[in-house]
């Protein structure tokens, strides 16, 4: 069970949130080639350890936040506004 400290709502239960994937990716620009978009859309670091990720507080303030979480221990390093 995760307890995520939303920057707007304070500590809340994980059931109020929806996971939205890897937040370390940045979208390529129009000058970048198809390969760059392939990497962005599909390829993932998928670490067994600290992971920067998007979570959406759908059941609370409905804002997106970035979370640092260990994917092996579930320890949360911190949460903040994007």
């Amino acid at each position, binding site marked *: 069970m995760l307890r995520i400290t939303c920057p707007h709502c304070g500590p809340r239960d994980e059931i109020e949130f929806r*996971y939205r994937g890897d937040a370390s990716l940045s979208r390529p620009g129009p000058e970048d080639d198809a390969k760059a978009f392939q990497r962005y859309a599909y390829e*993932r670091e998928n670490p067994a350890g600290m992971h920067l990720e998007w979570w959406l507080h759908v059941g609370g303030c409905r804002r997106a936040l970035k979370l640092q979480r260990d994917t092996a221990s579930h320890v949360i390093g911190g949460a903040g506004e994007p």
Partner: protein
Amino acid sequence: MQRYSAFRLALEALRGHGGWQPAWRDAAPKDRYKVVIVGAGGHGLATAYHLARDHGITDVAVLDKGPLGLGNVGRNTTIIRSNYFTAPNIRFYDHSLKLWENLERELNFNVMVSQRGSLNLAHSDGQRDLFARRANAMRLEGVAIEMLDKDAVKALCPLIDVDNGRYPVVGGFLQRRAGTVRHDAVAWGYARAASARGVDIVQHCEVTAIPREGARAMGVETTRGFIGADKVVLAVAGHSSRLAAMAGFRLPIETHVLQAFVTEAVKPLLDIVVTYGAGHFYVSQSDKGGLVFGGGTDGYNSYAQRGTLPMAEEVHAAGITLMPALSRLRTLRQWGGVMDMSMDGNPIISTTPVENLAVSTGWCYGGFKAIPAGGTCLAHLVATGAPHPLAAHFGLNRFETGAVIDERGVGPHPYLH
């Protein structure tokens, strides 16, 4: 290999069962192999077996960091079926189903294939239409499937509360050839058959690095020393990205946890596999009598190999909504497996940017049923260098060309597959 038969069983019974031999050799690793397969799960073991049987390649080692069968091959809910939507998938999974139908004879091992049928429920007209479309796609490939109305669902499985207030059942979709197989027996059956053909099965041998020389892998560094290899094969399920990183490339994979649950044993109650179409829940009854059930993934990247409470709660709630009688049972055991979720929800049996390294991954929550066909196709790829026609659509390059196979149309979001 000591063959199993009714005669041998009778003989051993008379001799006090003193004459049985170990089913397979627990080998120590050699310095070098023609093929090193990392991961002694279903796919690694079946691949080793098919390399030996179909291609005469027996200088093969299957390495695992733990004991045999403790990965997803021994953690899944044992369902086999071929009720897919896209034609190449129906062909691949139905081929697998046909191999299951003959597997016990083939391996001389009782893997308890039970073709009890698998029922998927529809709860809205839209869902029923989608099933009808899927059924038609299957029929076009010559695979039998039946559409059931609400009364037929009730007659087939009286446990289902077809009139439940939130998600009434409007019908279903039944594949009679689908069913269950005893999962750990599959690992043991393939291990035994591969071992008998000369394959080394090496337990407690964790791969820690994959040294390269230019575009080629030299072998694998392990907790039991370096093992050289002409070819390296990765079949490590949820750990695929870690192993790929060791070899220097990224995969379109995220690792997620899926849980399973077993109740106390009861008398025969449910003689088919049932999948709820409105919530995260599917269930079958094991031969020991426990109800074996599961649901969706926990919803976020995880290597934890244990489940979280919210999904456990959701699965139980969905189960009781569908089959209120289940509320009388106690759940005895629960566990989780770390799964290789691909970006389009479909497997990858493919060559990689490393010339002599092939990978089998992306099995998501459905790779158990694929073990016989997956092993056949991966062995073919490793032995011949060309993809097996049945798995040609599972290449890694599909993410580059755009030929992704999205059965459900949810896009590159593994947490939604």
